[in-house]
């Protein structure tokens, strides 16, 4: 008689939970697949019924139509400037603030920390009117600075970096102090490099969010040459009645998302590393 060996590995090969992950994946990916499908169809054909997506022929005419607009490249540049500027600014400020909250003693440290985190709770809609007015006073509308500035103080960034700096053992600082390194050198050469996984994660999140931002650019950038890609493409929608241009709308959505998808694929390894808990060893 041959008895099956009990294997603890079976316990961890749970196929039920596979389905939860799979369903999550499908929920996320189905709309993406659908929109790509729409973008590849002729608008006239879609008018008869969207089930046309499932059949040939496919066409790139919608994408061609987008690129015909001479403003697209200007909008793309604007989006790049805003997203990159915002990413660099958030990384810098969050790192400094995180270091300060994690390592330094200063008056009202706790109170300030709570106030900064409070920023997590304030919805953009609540402050957008006030912000609009303030930027008006300083004549910051329709400038890159005006688009970048409001999101520089990222509560999530400060949150994340504080956590990361706290996770670095204090002995590392002390070893560097004994190595006669200045406070700045300790921060710059010793501690900051150790937060790289957090920087990568925060950087990607910030870039994605800045790229996809809609509200503030819509309100602040009122001149067509200051539009970001999101706003610019949305503005050109008025040329088409929504029901007529479903394929064109899809192509717009896909086109506007392409850069973030590229960034994501490029940095995907780092996100996974950060998730794997690849902090300070």
């Amino acid at each position, binding site marked *: 008689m041959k008895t099956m060996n009990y294997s603890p590995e079976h316990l961890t090969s749970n196929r039920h939970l596979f389905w939860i992950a799979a369903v999550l994946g499908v929920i996320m990916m189905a709309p993406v697949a659908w929109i790509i499908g729409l973008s590849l169809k002729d608008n006239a054909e879609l008018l008869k019924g969207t089930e046309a997506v499932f059949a040939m022929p496919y066409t790139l005419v919608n994408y061609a139509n987008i690129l015909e607009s001479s403003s697209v490249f200007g909008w793309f540049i604007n989006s790049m400037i805003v997203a990159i500027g915002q990413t660099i600014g958030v990384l810098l400020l969050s790192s400094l603030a995180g270091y300060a909250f994690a390592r330094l003693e200063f008056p009202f440290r706790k109170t300030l920390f709570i106030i900064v985190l409070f920023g997590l709770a304030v919805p953009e809609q609540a402050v957008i009117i006030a912000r609009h007015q303030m930027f008006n006073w300083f004549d910051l509308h329709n400038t890159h600075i005006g688009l970048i500035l409001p999101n520089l103080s990222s509560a999530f960034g400060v949150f994340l970096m504080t956590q990361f700096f706290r996770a670095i053992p204090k*002995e590392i600082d002390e070893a560097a*102090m*004994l190595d*006669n390194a200045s406070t700045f050198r300790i921060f710059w050469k010793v501690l900051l490099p150790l937060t790289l996984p957090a920087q990568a994660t925060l950087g990607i999140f910030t870039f994605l969010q800045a790229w996809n931002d809609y509200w503030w650019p819509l309100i602040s950038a009122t001149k067509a040459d200051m539009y970001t890609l999101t706003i610019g493409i949305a503005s050109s929608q008025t040329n088409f009645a929504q029901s007529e241009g479903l394929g064109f709308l899809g192509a717009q959505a896909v086109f506007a998302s392409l850069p973030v998808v590229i960034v994501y694929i490029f940095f995907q390894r780092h996100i996974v590393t950060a998730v794997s808990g690849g902090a300070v060893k």
Partner: protein
Amino acid sequence: MSASISIKNITKRYDSVTVLDDINLHIEDGEFVVFLGPSGCGKSTLLRMIAGLESITEGSIEIGDKRIDTLPSGQRGVAMVFQSYALYPHMTTRQNMSFGLENVNVAQDEIDRRVNDAAKILEIDHLLDRKPGRLSGGQRQRVAIGRAIVKEPKAFLFDEPLSNLDAALRGRTRLELAQLHQRLGSTMIFVTHDQVEAMTLADRIVIMHKQKIEQIGTPMEIYQHPVSRFVAEFVGSPPMSMLPINHIENTVDGVTVEVSGAGKVVTAITLPQDFNAKDAVIGIRAEDTAIVSPQEEGLDLTIKVVERLGDRTLLYGTLVDGTELIAEDTGRSKVKAGETVRVSISPHAAHIFDGNGLAHHSQREV
């Protein structure tokens, strides 16, 4: 390059809590001194004060003839090896060792020379391009020591550097540290709560207890002439057995004490007139006992646990009244748990502690 260290009237308070109370200590140039004590005795705090990582409430510290407690850590000319090693995780071994020299603008070829020399001494030349994450615990330890050596400091400070190593590696590293001290001849301060490390490494041991220095002496002085019951119980493995004294009788050679309910122990200790006999105990180390035939004089010990260490055997047992005593037999001992054996005690090796914990020893060397 190496220098002496003077600690003068050092006191450390956090608010109302006193962590160190008026510590005075002079460490000679080239001496290997170990701060030994239980956790919370302030030994690490004292080391960190020398390193400049803790502020000083009162007192001063001098290295050589220079007062250094007014200087930041990096300018005191000391190097420290941390318990956690505290290597910079993103730097290679070479970068870890160079960092401190780059900060004081040592020329690149001088840095290379020192790093290569230290790496050779510590046998880590093949690891110079690895980052700490790819090193074993023992290798990290060597890199941490290397980082200290290249600075050619006036004094080395070690904060329990062996406690993260396993037993075998700890023994070997201990030996290598002793050799390193011989080779460099530098002043070294070593903090530990492990009395074996203290005994084997120190020129002098500083025993700390309750925020104060309890005893300063060579390992042999500490082991053979502990000033107090605390020191006697803290140093030595297995710990010294303490037997309550019922009655003291003066003899020509010293005193004979009656151990509660178990019999008499002859000692060569002379006690003073004002000896405080209340709660007095006699202390006996395992190696000063011998298992003798039942006809000979001694105490009857019922064995509870037999610990075979290979070269010797420790017998943990109780006397008739339940007092615990640890005796030693040879590595080939045939004694089993549950048996009762007769234990004799060397008259010159016992220690008597009065009710205040103060020690009295035999005047004669064995």
